[in-house]
């Protein structure tokens, strides 16, 4: 019986030594009233300052035509949002982290706008290269049909190219990582061709493809293919040998090994490749549209530049940034679904 007693004693000690409860990372205490006030107050003050600077400092230099004022309504809208979320933070305490995130964005935006407006009012910087904030906002109100159409065209080119490129990338990466023969024969050529910047293919792409749209798709697909292929193949090659052996001793044939061990094990790497190629694909998208595709945000930027309408250039740059955020978070959503098993292992 001695051993049994020892066991009971030790497990009792174990229980006593263990911390009573562990606090999970997502159960950090909610931001207090004080923190909410410390963010909301300055947000309101900063945006009141924006409004004051914009309306109270007289415009230096001669203005032969007073342009429409979009900044005042925008600043009022921001103030409205700031006040509304302030109240909201007290009703929905669970959303306080989101409220704080909004404040952080508004505070930074306001702090950038104040010197910009001062410089603008005192005529320290000159249009058209540095337009007023009001004119940039105005683009979204006055020119939104063209802008929306450009977004649609850009997204079409981008998504088609990216999907083709990353699909080819995943399959060629699997082949390269899985088959010794493919790797022996193709590795050298892939490494030679892959790193050539997609932009260097422009002369060839224009000649080979019937129109600039298909040439653009080729360039984007090429740009997204290489990172996905390299990371997929290194992911496949890096699948722990022990897992493959375990699967083999359990009776898995090659097909099952590939589908149920190699691919899931390589998937985290594949997603790193997908994220990397998203960046290059976006860069090439703009280049492709600037080089001759007759629609899209890249085209819009070139076209606006031709007319010296730099406010449109900046407005569409912001749109590009926002689009990238949306597309990336879409890919993140897919990853979160497929790789939810990783949550407990790595930091997200």
């Amino acid at each position: 019986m001695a051993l049994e007693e020892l066991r009971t004693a030790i497990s009792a000690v174990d229980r006593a030594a263990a911390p009573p409860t562990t606090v999970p990372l997502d159960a950090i205490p909610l931001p207090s009233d004080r923190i909410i006030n410390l963010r909301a107050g300055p947000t309101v003050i900063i945006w009141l300052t924006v409004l004051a600077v914009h309306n109270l400092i007289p415009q230096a230099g001669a203005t032969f035509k007073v342009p429409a004022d979009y900044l005042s309504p925008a600043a009022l809208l921001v103030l409205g949002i700031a006040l509304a979320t302030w109240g909201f933070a007290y009703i929905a305490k669970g959303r306080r982290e989101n409220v704080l995130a909004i404040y952080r964005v508004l505070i930074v935006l306001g702090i950038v706008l104040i010197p910009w407006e001062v410089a603008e009012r005192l005529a320290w910087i000159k249009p058209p290269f540095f337009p007023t904030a009001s004119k940039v906002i105005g683009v979204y109100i006055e020119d939104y049909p063209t802008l929306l159409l450009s977004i649609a065209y850009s997204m079409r080119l981008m998504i088609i190219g990216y999907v083709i490129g990353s699909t080819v990338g995943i399959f060629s990466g699997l082949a390269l990582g899985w088959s010794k023969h493919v790797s022996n024969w193709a590795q050298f050529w892939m490494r030679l061709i892959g790193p050539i910047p997609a932009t260097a293919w422009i002369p060839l792409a224009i000649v080979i493809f019937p129109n600039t749209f298909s040439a653009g798709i080729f360039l984007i697909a090429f740009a997204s293919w290489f990172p996905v292929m390299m990371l997929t193949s290194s992911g496949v090659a890096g699948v722990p040998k022990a897992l493959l052996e375990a699967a083999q001793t359990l009776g898995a044939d090659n097909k099952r090994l590939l589908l149920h061990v190699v691919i899931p094990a390589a998937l985290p790497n594949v997603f790193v490749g997908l994220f990397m190629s998203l960046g290059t694909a976006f860069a090439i998208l703009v280049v492709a549209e600037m080089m001759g595709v007759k629609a899209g945000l890249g085209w819009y930027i070139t076209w606006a530049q031709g007319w010296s309408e730099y406010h449109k250039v900046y407005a569409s740059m912001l749109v590009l940034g926002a689009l990238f955020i949306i597309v990336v978070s879409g890919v993140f959503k897919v990853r979160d679904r497929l790789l939810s098993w990783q949550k407990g292992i790595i930091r997200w």
Partner: protein
Amino acid sequence: MVATTTVSQGVPVTQGSDVELLGVSKTRPKGAGRETGGLVLNHLNLRVEPGSFVSIVGPGGCGKTTLLRLLAGLEPPSAGHVHVGGQTVHGPSPRRGIIFQDANLFPWLSVLKNVTFGPLSVGVSLKDAEARATHWLTFLGLSKFLQRYPHELSGGMQQRVAIARAIVNEPDLLLADEPFGGLDWITREQVCDELLRLWHTTRKTFIYVTHALEEAVYISQRVIILSARPGTVAKVIEVNLPEQRWAATDLRFSPEYARLVEEVREIFAEQTALAHNSR
């Protein structure tokens, strides 16, 4: 107390396969991450009766793991023959299960799916696979953790899942390579008992590699002591302890157990000394 537990309920039918190693040698190339190449196993002869539980001990680097990998078919021998169930081993097979030093579970699969992986690989229907997996996981006390992921389990529980995964295909031979090396002693004893209970229930051939001499004596019917590298069988010690050892709580304090451990320890020390002298 001990005496009463020796009486087993009738003679169980043996389903395990016999294992035969004839003049098995294994050489490894020097380099490639290994400082010592050359002969790992030297003309090793060994026979394991069907349905028996045998453990293998030996000085570090004597080729215990290599021996197990040859039996699993994960590596071919350089010379000699490896027969399991009367057939020459060619590559891995679900007829020969293996439990590794690390649990090696698939981190993207739940506990249940880790265990159904084997049956589904050999063409068992999903329903049957799940029933079998649930049966063995319950046997090993994991019925509440079917939907958990491996990283949510403790080391001992992960190793239990690995045992269930290896046994669910109902292999004729179960190989274990220091499976409980990473566990604390209390957990280790518990999982050992479970493995023993499992062997008693299934009556398959179990080959268990370990570096814990007491454990080798406790768990098996025969302890095979390998010589220093290049490994060959130095001595075989019969362990005549009652079969249902997990039920005999005083077993570890019995004089017979102590004598056997001492005997194994002495031969082991001799072999280790030989290994040092030969260097």
